């Protein structure tokens, strides 16, 4: 069995993993990326639509084009890449702690054999998985023809198969919207998108470009209350919601042979959890400090494994920082003081969970409400530190801004201070 050692190991070779690894490599640390699939680029490789890279490269790219720019740099770097390799377990190593935190040990399996890798830092960049039918408890029969939107995307865009003819998309997440358009393009009839909430879960641009342009009806405030068919899907039952409850007398049936599910994404943290990483119950990602470090010393998280992002550009931004913070940590640098960040009224979550007032912090947060002319308030121990005007907020659009030393100038705070984020 092979035994290897690196300063840092990045788990996952999607946009997050590659962006983080490149920073570590640039900082002069030895670094490996472990990827279970047979290619770099992760799920971007099946996202053949465009719209990627507007922030990162100031141009509109397809998923594979976007990934290619990172893949090229990774290939030219000194980063060790292990493809077809699954990390089955990671844990603090048994051996004695080194100068900057204890070693971590990763168990990996590939067709070339098993490996044990020791490393000082571990960067979690495993991305997320799609929520499935069971997670949202859609009742009914269990025939063939029910796919998560991402699986359907894989089948059509990479494997070259069309999974059905008459399609209903349940949930209005971005992948579902993209797939509604994609299925129309390959000759399927997309009969409806059914969303339980009163507003769409996906980005506005996708509602316009993928549904309206193709005359695909979007049923909001509508729950899927049945699936019909024993061998193959024959239809679904949709029940409108009124005043927060189902109105069964208004149920109707839509005939279809295929159901695509786009009902949300869950950060894939089973490996992290098993290793002892604490998770935030709202994001399902690790709870991280201002350096994107988890409760486990030397274990960092970035990208969709930390929290589900709207766009890959922000995944890259966050992951580059994770790579730099990991490099700083490897050099023994630590922020002197961190204060806690907390989601206040109308805010679903704030990432990271700790802020270092001495340096610039990038905040990512999500609103719980749909609102025009909203005011975002930052309160340090109940004193308003800053107010930001937002023309429109909604849960599906992430809010991002920076706070830094200037915001804290002349203010008193200590390690018990709390920075609260509120929307009104």
């Amino acid at each position: 069995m092979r035994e290897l050692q690196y300063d840092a190991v990045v788990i996952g070779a999607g946009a997050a993993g590659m962006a983080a690894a490149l920073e570590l490599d640039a900082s002069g640390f030895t670094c490996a990326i472990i990827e279970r699939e047979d290619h770099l680029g992760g799920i971007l490789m099946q996202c053949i639509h465009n719209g990627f890279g507007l922030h990162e490269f100031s141009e509109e790219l397809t998923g594979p084009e976007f990934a290619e720019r990172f893949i090229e740099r990774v290939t030219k770097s000194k980063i060790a890449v292990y493809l077809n390799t699954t990390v089955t377990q990671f844990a603090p190593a048994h051996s004695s702690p080194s100068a900057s935190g204890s070693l971590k040990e990763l168990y990996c399996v590939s067709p070339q054999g098993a490996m044990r890798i020791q490393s000082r830092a571990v960067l979690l960049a495993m991305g997320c998985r799609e929520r499935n039918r069971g997670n949202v408890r859609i009742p009914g029969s269990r025939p063939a023809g029910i796919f998560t939107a991402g699986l359907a995307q894989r089948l059509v865009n990479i494997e070259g198969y069309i999974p059905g003819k008459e399609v209903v998309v349940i949930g209005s997440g971005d992948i579902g919207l993209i797939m509604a358009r994609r299925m129309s393009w390959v000759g399927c009839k997309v009969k409806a998108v059914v969303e339980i909430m009163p507003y769409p879960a996906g980005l506005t641009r996708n509602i316009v470009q993928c549904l309206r342009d193709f005359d695909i009806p979007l049923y909001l405030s509508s729950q899927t209350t049945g699936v019909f068919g024993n061998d193959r899907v024959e239809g679904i039952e949709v029940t409108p919601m009124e005043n927060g409850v189902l109105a069964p007398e208004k149920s109707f049936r839509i005939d279809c042979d295929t159901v695509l599910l786009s009902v949300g994404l869950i950060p894939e943290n089973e490996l992290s959890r098993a290793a002892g990483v604490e998770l935030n119950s709202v994001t399902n990602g690790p709870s991280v400090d201002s350096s994107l470090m988890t409760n486990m010393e030397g274990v960092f998280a970035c990208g969709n494994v930390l929290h589900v992002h709207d766009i890959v550009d922000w995944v890259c931004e966050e992951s580059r920082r994770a790579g730099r913070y990991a490099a700083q940590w490897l050099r023994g640098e630590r922020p002197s003081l961190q204060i806690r960040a907390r989601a206040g009224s109308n805010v679903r979550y704030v990432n990271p969970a700790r802020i270092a007032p001495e340096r610039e912090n990038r905040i990512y947060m999500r609103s719980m409400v749909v609102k025009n002319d909203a005011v975002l308030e930052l309160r340090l121990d109940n004193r308003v530190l800053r107010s930001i005007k937002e023309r429109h907020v909604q849960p599906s659009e992430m809010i991002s801004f920076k706070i830094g030393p200037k915001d804290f100038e002349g203010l008193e705070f200590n390690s018990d201070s709390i920075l609260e984020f509120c929307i009104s």
Partner: protein
Amino acid sequence: MEFDAAIIGCGVSGANIARRLSAYSIKTAILEKAADVSFGTSKANSGIIHGGFHHNKKYLKARLEIQGSLMFDQLRRELNFPFRRCGIIVAALHEEEMKAVEHLYMQGVENEVIGIELCSRQRILELEPKLSADTVGGLYAPGGGIIEPYRFVFALVESALKNGVELFTNFKVEKTSRNGDYWVIRAEDGREIKARYAINSAGLFADEVSKTFGAEEFTISARKGEYFLLDRLTKACPSKVVFPVPTSVSKGMLVIPTVEGTALVGPTADAVEDKNDFSTTTKRLEQILVSGKTMIPSLSQNDVITAFAGLRPCLGEDFYIEASKKAPAFVQVAGIQSPGLTASPAIGEYVKNILLDMGLQLTEKPGWDPYIEDRPLARGLNLNELDSLIAKDSAWGNIVCRCENVSEAEIVQAVKLGHTTLDGIKYFTRAQMGRCQGGFCTYKIIKIIMRETGLSWNEVTKHGGKSRILEASLDEIGMAQ
């Protein structure tokens, strides 16, 4: 093709009968209407080896349950299916329920259940700390256990086939006739076999099969049981099977630790008209959560991976296992609902004896091999063991199912053993059974099936029949990029 015995229906009863008969020098056929074995009632149930206290010994089902349960340890040594005697608890949530618990205890003592205990509140909470603080006491049967029912059936069938039994899948019995001492049994697709004795273990459809043979007329009614499957990371997974106090209709909704570390909650009990109705319902699924939480408060709906339903084949109060009084050389094995899985090894034995009484000559087969290959599983190996397997076959290093840690080698094995549908592979290997429910691995498994069987994309199904997965190929409609 001529056989001495034809077993119609390959659920857990049929499989046990087939495996028992495989020990004798006779020719046995199994006729299964589905694409794979164990695709009916045997695939969707609680997967419990019962404690032997739920039924009075005056019933055949109670006697077979007690006898059957004792046979599992040896079967496990021979057939390596997942089985563990984790123990069974009945939890009473208020004092009145303790009366029923005492009744069950007395019945258990009468049934000579080994180690059965009546438990105080303190004792039962010590045995199962995850129980609600409202628990007032209960019952403990240490010999009760858990099993993966489909893998039990697969192992029995593999053993039977190894010893010369022949399996015909997609063989839906449509018509029968007598030809001298033989039954001529014809399938819907025209295939025909001849057999001297026929055994009706057709589960939900035993009534129809009985009619086809001109035997007794009876009606099997379906009673649906809905379940939730919980992620292995749930806090609510108990160490023992937790029963509520039973009602007159059913044993109630349980919380079950599965052998593979996940947990099941259910089943409900509702009569349904359609024997193909495996649908779940909002109303019942809500009830399951409420009921489960009453017993184990840490149960969370966030832990739900999937929901499913199974159908119990109901016929009166007891099992109906006897030689037909109407049709010659025909044995009825009908109405095998709970505790059918527990009783099934004893059913095999019982049916063998009926056949003997009917005049079937049974001489022990020289060289009968009770063992099947003990196959390693990637998830059960340490890194060094896995490394040496990979050195022999690199497919062991390709983890296809990330949630349940299933390697390509295991999926290839499943296909080679005849499990060529997505569901068959799921039940055999656990791939697609974890938290992503196949979101990441389905396309990989489709490709492995096509490669190993030579099936084309439009022949790959979820569970046989018309359950095709893919509708068109971009190549074939000229849309490939």
